[in-house]
């Protein structure tokens, strides 16, 4: 039997939710362990096999000078590198600091701010190194994670569509909440969650970040027609994917 590909899972600034999706794979977890050698995954096992690694999954954003160095080393040890989740692909909720002065936050939160060594921004991994594939979502969908790993093993393209959440919403037969009066980010948001929120009569929160061709101003006009004001639009866009370019630009346009 040929050696199994070596898998490493890396953590940067993040909540661990995306890595946990892998541990949460339950039924598939044994299959994952059978298909790859889990060589470096501190969340799952303290036994660490040295690199290089065939597949690296990277969670989290870059927020410290130390991490900005560390990600370079991860890239060097990784043949194929996939970023997972909104932090790694867009900077995460912690990128809200990018819209303000991080020194003010540090001063407000820490008793001894002089010990804090942090960057002014939270940025996605792709702002620092070349990334081979990005899997979006806050958190990622575990079925999509298994799909990405399976595709990597089979040498095929993952079936992870980049169209709107609306298509998933319609495929599952939900009734559009936006047409019924509730502002929804679905039309500009990347599919992947399976359109969960509209199925529970809530507007989409944009957890999977911008879809392939988001028309942000048109959606914002639609929100205003439903009674949302600039603050509502800005707040909706400034969440887990606030620093993703289309969301960032549109939220700035409502900075009134």
């Amino acid at each position, binding site marked *: 039997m040929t050696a199994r590909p070596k898998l490493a899972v890396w953590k940067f600034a993040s909540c661990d939710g995306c890595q946990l999706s892998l541990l949460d794979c339950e039924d598939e977890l044994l299959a994952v362990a059978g298909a790859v050698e889990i060589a470096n995954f501190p969340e799952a096992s303290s036994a660490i096999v040295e690199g290089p690694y065939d597949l690296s999954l990277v969670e989290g954003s870059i927020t410290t000078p130390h991490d900005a160095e560390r990600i370079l080393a991860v890239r060097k040890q990784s043949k194929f590198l996939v970023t997972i989740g909104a932090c790694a692909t867009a900077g995460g909720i912690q990128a809200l600091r990018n819209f303000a002065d991080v020194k003010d936050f540090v001063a407000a939160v820490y008793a001894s701010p002089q010990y804090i060594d942090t960057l002014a921004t939270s940025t996605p991994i792709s702002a620092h190194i070349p990334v081979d594939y990005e899997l979006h979502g806050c958190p990622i969908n575990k079925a999509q994670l298994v799909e990405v790993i399976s595709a990597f093993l089979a040498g095929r393209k993952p079936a992870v569509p980049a169209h709107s959440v609306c*298509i998933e919403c319609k495929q599952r037969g939900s009734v559009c909440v936006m047409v019924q009066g509730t502002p929804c980010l679905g039309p500009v948001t990347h599919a992947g969650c399976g359109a969960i929120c509209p199925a529970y009569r809530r507007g989409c929160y944009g957890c999977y970040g911008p879809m392939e061709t988001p028309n942000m101003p048109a959606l914002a006009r639609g929100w205003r027609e439903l009674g949302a004001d600039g603050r509502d639009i800005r707040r909706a866009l400034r969440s887990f994917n606030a620093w993703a370019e289309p969301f960032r630009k549109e939220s700035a346009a409502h900075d009134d």
Partner: protein
Amino acid sequence: MQDIRPDTSHVVIDAHGLQCLIDALSQDGRRVVGPTVRDEAIVYDDIAGLGSLPRGWTDRQEAGRYALERREDEACFGYVVGPHSWKKFLFPPVETLWKARREDDGTMAVSRPERPADRFAFIGVRACEIEAIAIQDRVFEQGPYTDTAYAARRSDAFIVAVNCGQAGGTCFCVSMETGPRATHGFDLALTEMIEGAEHRFLVEIGSEEGRSVMAQVPHVRADEARIGAASAIVERTAAQMGRHLDTDGLKELLQGNLEHPRWDDVADRCLTCANCTMVCPTCFCSTVEDHSDLANREAERVRKWDSCFTMDFSYIHGGSVRASTASRYRQWMTHKLANWIDQFGTSGCVGCGRCITWCPVGIDLTQEAAAIRATPGEGRS
């Protein structure tokens, strides 16, 4: 009520008769689906009887807006068409086409999933929807290749049509000559008639199967006055259309205005969200996703509804052919209203208005077409 001559094509039933009809269809082993209220909308789902129907409800529709309202009467079919269409049953949004398995000895076993045993009975199919089903029939079973799963579901489906007693704010079946009266393609067609406390349905029998089902339902013969009154209801509906589409020379108009500035104007508003294509009862495009498992032993091909509004839809080597929103909206509208005629011999639009109502930003193809008609030839070099 007592039985009548078997050759009569019109009979009358009451609400109890409608329940008996649903019972008879379900006792015949059919999966009876029809309108029901869910999530503040009238959707199509499994129904058990009168209690499942949207009795006393109506819908108010405008571009990008839909709301349910209480009616003053207890009509069962006093609404128009909602977010769903029968396409979700005949052409399911997600369907596994085949699975393959690599055995230990290296051989490959390919299996098709068993065809679901559903023999449908559709209750409350509108005239425009019958036309939409006929359009999908042309695509799925009358071309060079037949979609056998579609064809099987289709030929088993029992259709109970309903002639519309009112038109909605986004309806334009009169422009498309598809309604509001169902003239063919049904087993039974109902016209709901409420006068004071009297709640009746005129039933037109459209097939032998329809006739044999009606033999199990208590009914009386329809007299001329009843048939005339039902016609008057449908005529009144025809005069109430919320939208109008001028189809005169429309194909040539659109095909001759591919560079019209209106395409950029609509692109400014369009979200490329694809809702219009998902809700359209004639849109038939699909994509396939191939999945393999972690052990690389099992694979499957899944078909999903797709849309000309996605980038993958026109992706060929090197990129998407229709990268701009203008080109994608133009593809949708020119196919639907013009090129469809070249391809299949009819318009791809039946005037149901769903794409107008269910567009989150209320883009209205009748308005877009009118805007191009108002300034034809603009922007042509």
